[in-house]
């Protein structure tokens, strides 16, 4: 049985997608830094005073044990800011490590809901978990870029 050229056009991209998926599932998860950094840029307070809606922290932050399990908050503005669970002085940073997979709720006046949720997921040790982590990582990066924009 011969495979027609038109069939190859369908088979090759599918094989490519499956190959990339398999590679994403098999390759061990590692990144350069375990830190998930959020920063209040200089001038944020002035922008808020001018009526701009400035969202720095998303309502929900997802971290992964052993991969990205340290939350870093930085206040680069000129005034003290309530950021995440705590009050931070200008130029101050706060580094919060997590060692247990769980859902953490923090009071946060920076959010309209008054609450911030941090979900710490277990280390992706199985192929399926690695694949899922990588897909979520791409989505998460896009969400963070939207928040920054």
């Amino acid at each position, binding site marked *: 049985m011969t495979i027609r050229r038109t069939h190859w056009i369908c088979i090759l991209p599918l094989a490519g997608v499956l190959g990339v998926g398999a590679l994403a599932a098999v390759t061990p998860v590692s990144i350069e830094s375990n830190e998930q950094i959020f920063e209040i840029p200089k001038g944020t307070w002035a922008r808020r005073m001018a009526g701009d809606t400035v969202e720095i922290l998303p309502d929900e932050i997802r971290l992964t044990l052993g991969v990205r399990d340290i939350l870093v908050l930085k206040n680069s503005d000129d005034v003290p800011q309530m950021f995440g669970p705590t009050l931070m002085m200008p130029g*101050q*940073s706060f580094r919060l490590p997590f060692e*247990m997979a769980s859902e953490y709720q923090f009071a946060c006046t920076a959010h309209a809901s008054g609450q911030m949720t941090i979900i710490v997921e277990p280390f992706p040790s199985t192929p399926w978990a690695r694949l899922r982590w990588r897909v979520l990582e791409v989505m998460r990066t896009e969400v963070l870029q939207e928040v920054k924009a």
Partner: protein
Amino acid sequence: MRSRRRFPFDRNSRVVNAAFLLLFSCLLYGGNAGALEEPAMKAGVFSPARVAPDFSLAASDGSELNLQRFRGKVVALGFGFTSCPDVCPITLAVLAQARRKLGELKEDLQVVYVTVDPDRDDAERMRNYLAAFDPTFIGGTGTEEQLAAVREEYGIMAKKTVYGKDYGFSHSSFTYLIDRQGKLRALMTYGHTAEDFANDFGILLQE
């Protein structure tokens, strides 16, 4: 005919020596790198640390409560109320357990618990409540305005919720760690074990 296999390293002893030297160096560097690392705190750490805002409240032992009097000690500063059904008793029990784990160093640790419920938590009530966990714990109370000012300095949230004739509070549940120099060094979120607290107290006490 059996060929006699020569041990491959014989011919390249210099290469082998160099490889072992490199491996040994790596191991040595790795070991030193680990030894030079600062002990890791379990709490969230502020950088740079700022001086913990001081206050003047009524202490549960009848004296004036401020942070200056504890300079030279490590202070665990928490906020809550004596009628709290879960978070406060758990936190205080964990702090008491952590303190016991410190051995002789426990004398240099002071737990300070500031109420968010001044209507019910007077000095006597706080003293009796805290003594059930550890008689060295000191409570702080005052007027609503005084306590609100302290909460603002520390970014503490406290929201009153009325249930029929009773009421409670939703409040920040973390504990601040203040070092011997009076600097606000770290924030331990709710849910950590006594071992975690003892680890961080130990690090701060041995500085």
